[in-house]
């Protein structure tokens, strides 16, 4: 239904009448609200939104920003939500106190959906039936400003976004200096674009001060809770982690939401990995023809001895299946960074999910099981970014890292990343000298010399004549000779199982926060971490104390067993339809599987604290 069909009651530019808004002067709401900006995809609102976000961050207030966007380049509705929370809970909230409606296509719905007492800012050229009396209306002449202040018609839509930045800064009390600092960050210190944007921001702020008296209760105040913190998205964090892990070869194929990983590699590697003497790059990044080729190249490079990775999402993971199984059996290091999203083809490719857990863990053609790392924050994206290479080379196997769209593409505050605390571990590689020392019959590519299931390898280019071997997927004896003998196959599988147990001990341990006396536990992973912290707070306020175990890798650590045993009910909170981690936990602890209860949800949006606490309470009260 269009606005016209409804019979618009507000002609453009007319301020709502006094009396149609809440009358009592409300108590101020300080540093605790959500802002939802409804715009169009591709209209350039991203700069405006991230500017607001970073300005709030610069004011020292805990904040997060999430882009909920369609699979479309231009024109379809997009919502950007900013959550400001003085207590540091910045997981997604479904509702917002501040709504900025500048997309005519959604303005009416935005209006109807606004919560009671919301600040409703809208472009005054959108005709809306302002018949709700529980909102604070702020019409702003977005178009007029943009036309008057931007000569280039092509830039007008973009500049329109800066109008709401200025107006909102004025209403909430965001320091214009912080807005300017945020723009400086965005434009990397380039004065000219900063100045032209600031001009519009200032004019809009002044106009708002004169024309729109503040009636709503929402204000910001400077804090010191972001001191020493940085703000970054998980994909950039992943790429930086990989770079500080020595990534040398990357092959990838474009896919939302993973493209940012390769983009960041392309941005930072030229700065960080040019040989100071030769001035030549010490890395190579290839945009492959598909994900199958991408992992094939990565496997080839890993086999030849360089640290290699690919980044992708679910559809790419499915194409990589055969190579993943190959890497497992031929025992070739590789890092596969999976930024999870909703399933195949079209529909919801830009929506978040934790749906690749089982697929990635068991990817291949049967009897292959891969180590999987599960970062729960941007900080862990960096940490696992470098650790994944040490693990892949130490274990000589493909290692998956499952991030997701929420961590990967959204901006998060974090402590600055810590430089790796240990030297690079290249794993068991024999040099020409080593092979020579071992003598004839000494080097056997697939022989377990150390009892940990990991054999020693040589690299192509090793010039000692006994160093070479012939690599195949399945069917080889200890010397890598083709073999179909049952005992060779079984012996090899036993060794691989031993290696898997070694992997279990090397992977990042779960993080446990147990509460004395709690009978209820929450087990989760990945991006669910942020809303869980808040959900546990909510549950505690309602009298339910919960322990929490965040797993950070597959295969599951032994600590999981103790945690499940120690709690009568363990809710496995995750963002997928098949309760995938719940199934894996039950398999891991069959003797107490009855304690393990699914608490999963998947609607394409990041989990919220409210959903989690309500779901757990409902299950508890049954």
């Amino acid at each position: 239904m269009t606005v016209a069909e409804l019979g618009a009651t507000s002609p453009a530019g007319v301020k709502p009448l006094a009396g149609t808004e809440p009358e009592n002067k409300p108590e101020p709401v300080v540093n605790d609200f959500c802002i939802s900006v409804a715009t169009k995809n591709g209209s350039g609102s991203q700069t405006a939104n991230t500017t607001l976000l970073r300005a709030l961050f610069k004011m020292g207030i805990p904040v997060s920003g999430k882009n909920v966007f369609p699979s479309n380049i231009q024109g379809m509705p997009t919502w950007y939500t900013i959550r400001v929370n003085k207590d540091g809970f910045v997981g997604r909230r479904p509702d917002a106190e501040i709504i900025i409606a500048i997309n005519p296509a959604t303005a009416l719905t935005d209006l109807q959906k606004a919560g009671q007492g919301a600040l409703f800012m809208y472009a005054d050229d959108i005709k809306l039936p302002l018949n709700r009396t529980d909102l604070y209306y702020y019409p702003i002449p977005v178009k007029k400003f943009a036309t008057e202040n931007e000569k280039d018609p092509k830039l007008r839509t973009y500049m329109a976004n800066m109008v709401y930045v200025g107006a909102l800064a004025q209403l909430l009390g965001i320091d214009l200096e912080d807005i300017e600092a945020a723009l400086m960050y965005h434009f990397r210190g380039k004065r000219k674009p900063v100045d032209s944007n600031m001009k519009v921001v200032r004019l809009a702020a002044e106009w708002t001060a004169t024309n729109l008296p503040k009636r709503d209760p929402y204000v910001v105040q400077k804090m010191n809770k972001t001191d020493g913190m940085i703000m970054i998205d998980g994909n950039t964090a992943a790429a930086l982690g990989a770079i500080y892990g020595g990534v040398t070869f990357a092959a990838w194929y474009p896919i939302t939401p993973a493209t940012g990983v390769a983009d960041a590699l392309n941005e930072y590697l030229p700065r960080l990995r040019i040989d100071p003497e030769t001035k030549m790059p010490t890395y190579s990044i290839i945009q492959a023809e598909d994900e199958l080729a991408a992992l094939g190249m990565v496997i080839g490079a890993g086999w030849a001895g360089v640290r290699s990775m690919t980044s992708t999402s679910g559809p790419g993971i499915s194409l990589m299946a055969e190579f993943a199984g190959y890497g497992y059996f031929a025992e070739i290091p590789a890092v596969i960074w999976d930024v999870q999203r909703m399933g195949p083809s079209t529909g919801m490719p830009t929506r978040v999910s934790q749906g690749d857990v089982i697929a990635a863990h068991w990817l291949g053609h049967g009897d292959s099981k891969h180590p999987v790392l599960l970062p729960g924050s941007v900080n862990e994206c960096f940490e696992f970014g470098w650790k994944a290479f040490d693990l892949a080379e130490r274990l000589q196997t493909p290692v998956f890292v499952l991030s997701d769209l929420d961590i990967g593409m959204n901006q998060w505050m974090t402590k600055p990343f810590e430089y790796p605390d240990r030297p690079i571990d290249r794993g068991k590689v024999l040099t020409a000298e080593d092979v020579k020392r071992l003598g004839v019959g000494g080097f056997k590519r697939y022989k377990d010399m150390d009892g940990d299931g990991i054999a020693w390898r040589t690299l192509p280019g090793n010039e000692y004549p006994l160093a070479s071997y012939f690599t195949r997927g399945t069917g080889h004896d200890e010397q890598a000779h083709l073999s179909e003998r049952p005992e060779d196959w079984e012996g090899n599988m036993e060794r691989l199982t031993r290696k898997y147990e070694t992997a279990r001990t090397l992977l990042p341990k779960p993080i446990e926060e147990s509460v004395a006396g709690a009978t209820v536990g929450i087990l989760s992973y990945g991006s669910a971490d942020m809303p869980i912290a808040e959900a546990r707070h909510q549950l505690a306020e309602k009298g339910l104390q919960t322990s929490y175990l965040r797993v950070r890798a597959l295969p599951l650590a032994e600590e999981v067993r103790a945690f499940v045993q120690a709690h009568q009910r363990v809710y496995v909170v995750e963002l997928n339809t098949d309760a995938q981690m719940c199934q894996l936990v039950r398999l891991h602890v069959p003797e107490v599987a009855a304690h393990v209860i699914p608490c999963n949800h998947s609607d394409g949006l990041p989990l919220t604290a409210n959903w989690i606490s309500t779901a757990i309470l409902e299950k508890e009260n049954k």
Partner: protein
Amino acid sequence: MATVNVVKPTVTANSVAKRVNSIGLERIDYKGAESTLCAGCGHDSIASQIITACYELGVRPERLVKFSGIGCSSKSPAYFMSRSFGINTLHGRMAPVATGALTANHKLYGIGVSGDGDTGSIGLGNFKHMLRRNVRMVYIIENNGVYGLTKGQFSATADVGQELRHAGRNELPPIDLCMEAITAECGFVARGFAGDPKQVVSLLKAALSCNGTAVLDIISPCVTFNNHDDSTKSYSWGRSKDERINDFTYVAPQEEITSEFEPGEMKDVELHDGSRIVLKRLEDSHDPTDRNAAMALLQDARQNQLFITGLIYLQPGRPNLAQQENLGDTPLVQIPNEKLRPSVESLQKIMAAMA
């Protein structure tokens, strides 16, 4: 860029007994494992021609890596040069694995052996993209017009109207892998016949000196599933119809051009490593540096079911992938750990900028 070192063997008192090549290795040093292919399979004869070419050129086995996909043909890297590293990849996926491995170490020689099914069907996309990237390696297709390892289905290079015992009659037009290679800007495209070892060896030697991907489509009869007389991929067809499109000699970098041809009838093309290909200019001979002529030749051969062999297309100038990637003299794999991880200060700087 490494070159194929050819030093004329110096016969000394101790080496008189054994025949050795320019780097002092015997032919036996180039041997592989015992073949498990059918007796008489064309693939085995190609393996032994690879041995001959590498032995004669004096390629150090440790500096060569072998690649393959899956198929009878793809098994053959196990049957030559055991002292070289090798990797039997997935069906159709030799190209990406070789791309990664030869980027990690661009100083190694690459020899890949694939089949017509491996390259022409499941791996066609990856094949063409590898050619676009121009990875420096020799890419051999052992072309028998059939899927050997899965027992006799038609491959994409089978002729229209061809009949096979189990598969029946093929109605689909064939894919000409040489044409595909030319349209993907491959700089060295040749066709050979497993039953003509001498020519295959010359083509292999020239291919090994190429700066980018060199494609050798070698007709290699499958004696078990596709060797009846009316098959264009059979020995008898090849022996009776083989039409050489050019004569050429391969001249290694240090050698003088002492060609069998008279100067007036020669055309010579320098390859990247300083070696040369000297072509004999015959009345109606094909000039491989002419792209249109190469395409026309293939078109013509396809229409008339001609069995042509020789160097079809040669355009050695395009930079290879390692050059495009600006890789220096040190292969990526030899970059020491200290240079892999940027400094603490660099991270602090990045962090400070994000505050």
